[in-house]
């Protein structure tokens, strides 16, 4: 293909964008709205995932050792706990260490502990391989001889996990649906544009234009529409996310994924999707018009 031809395609494509002003506007809007929602969903689900990871990593099982267990039996007990199915890690915290930690937390009020001796038990801190199975693992730990009691956030944990699972699934379904809807909108709008230019394509074919040549301007059009359609939501989301990240103060585990990193990735995804939608939309919808 000659350079002059590339220039012609670019010029024609641009001119067509303006010539079909309303259709162009409709297509770009469709891409922009779709990608805005897509980008928003990605950001939302990334953060939900981030928060749930934060929480899950903090899900630990505290197993308190009965006072009747002698110190020299502790290593065997630790081994036994480590071999329970679903256990990822076991860490021993002696009653001495526990007391030290307690005093640190209490700081200036640490004196209230004096005279009490050490009321704290020896303990093991366990993590489940799969945080979702924390409850099941805790039950097993509880039934191990020598363990007096177990704590793992029994009350709030199941609810939290359910909410997170639902949120994650909903985000995936939403994104999938939106992509399909967006493509449908775009291919439809471009099909209308092509329909009005059927005559032009027909004549080009009759005077001996190759299919590649006929596609040229449409390709340029689709690409430009996709890019502009991706640029708008990218800028909006970037600014919005930055504003939220800077304005809203959040505490762990409810923290945002740091914005410069994540937003850059999301922008690339949007640009790629926009290009794909635009190019695919224009080329796919003109396929049947090329068979003259």
């Amino acid at each position, binding site marked *: *293909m000659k350079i*002059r031809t590339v220039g*012609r395609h670019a010029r024609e494509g641009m001119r067509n964008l303006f010539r079909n002003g309303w259709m162009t506007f409709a297509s770009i809007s469709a891409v922009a709205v779709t990608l805005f929602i897509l980008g928003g969903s990605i950001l939302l689900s990334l953060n939900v995932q981030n928060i749930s990871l934060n929480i899950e990593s903090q899900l630990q099982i505290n197993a308190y050792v009965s006072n009747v267990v002698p110190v020299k039996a502790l290593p065997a007990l630790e081994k036994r706990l480590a071999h329970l199915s679903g256990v990822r890690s076991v860490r021993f915290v002696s009653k001495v260490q526990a007391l030290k930690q307690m005093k640190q937390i209490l700081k200036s009020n640490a004196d209230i502990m004096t005279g009490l001796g050490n009321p704290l038990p020896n303990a093991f801190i366990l993590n489940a391989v799969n945080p979702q199975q924390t409850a099941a693992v805790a039950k097993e730990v509880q039934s191990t001889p020598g363990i007096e009691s177990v704590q793992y956030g029994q009350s709030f944990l199941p609810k939290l996990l359910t909410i997170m699972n639902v949120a994650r699934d909903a985000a995936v379904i939403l994104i999938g649906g939106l992509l399909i809807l967006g493509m449908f909108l775009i291919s439809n709008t471009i099909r209308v544009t092509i329909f009005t230019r059927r005559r032009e394509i027909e*004549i080009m074919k009759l*005077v*001996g*234009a190759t*299919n590649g040549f006929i596609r040229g301007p449409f390709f340029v059009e689709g690409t430009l529409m996709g890019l502009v359609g991706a640029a708008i939501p990218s800028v909006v989301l970037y600014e919005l996310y930055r504003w939220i990240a800077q304005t809203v103060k959040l505490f762990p585990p409810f923290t945002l994924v740091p914005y410069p990193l994540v937003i850059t990735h999301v922008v690339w995804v949007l640009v790629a999707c926009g290009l794909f939608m635009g190019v695919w939309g224009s080329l796919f919808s003109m396929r049947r018009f090329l068979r003259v």
Partner: protein
Amino acid sequence: MIEMQDVWKEYGNGVAALSGISVRIAQGEFCYVVGPSGAGKSTFIKLMYREEKPTKGQIFVGGFNIERLRERQIPMMRRHIGVVFQDYKLLQPLTVYENVSFALEVIEASRKTIQKRVAEVLELVGLTEKANMLPRELSGGEQQRVGIARALVNKPSVIIADEPTGNLDPDNSWTIMKLFQRVNDRGTTIVMATHNRELVNSVRKRVIAIEQGRIVRDQERGEYGYED
């Protein structure tokens, strides 16, 4: 130049448009295709520029075996053929000049060639003065001359015309006819489907008559032979 060997064309609905056509048209010939409406004239014409594919039989146009043509060779073959239509098929938003130069741009001719050729053919069809006008500012006859200029601009060896005077009054029809004769005098083959009795009977050329999908008459310097 153009040769058909036992060509059959059946459309998807089972209607047989052509049943066993064999014909040979030599380089430089001028040939009318006549016959009642629905006899198969249009199909006959469309097969020549591969708008339709034959169901059976072989077609050769200017060295191309139409039936064996690959999808990507079709554009190359069409560059050797100029097609003229009853409804002109001009692009309304483009000027006369652009409508003609379009045919050369599409085949990636150089800018110099385009300028030179478009000027030549516009002069040939007598529209140099109206190069910057839009199709809707022209009369029917003038629009058809633009159509012919576009068909001629890449120097085809054949011009195929489907009812080129069908929408024109007698005066304009004569202008178009004279134009075709001039083109034919330069050695271009012309195949013209027509209902114009007066033209066929006054300017005697070879006449191929098609009825019910068959060639029923093929005579040199023939007559129109129908009453319509």
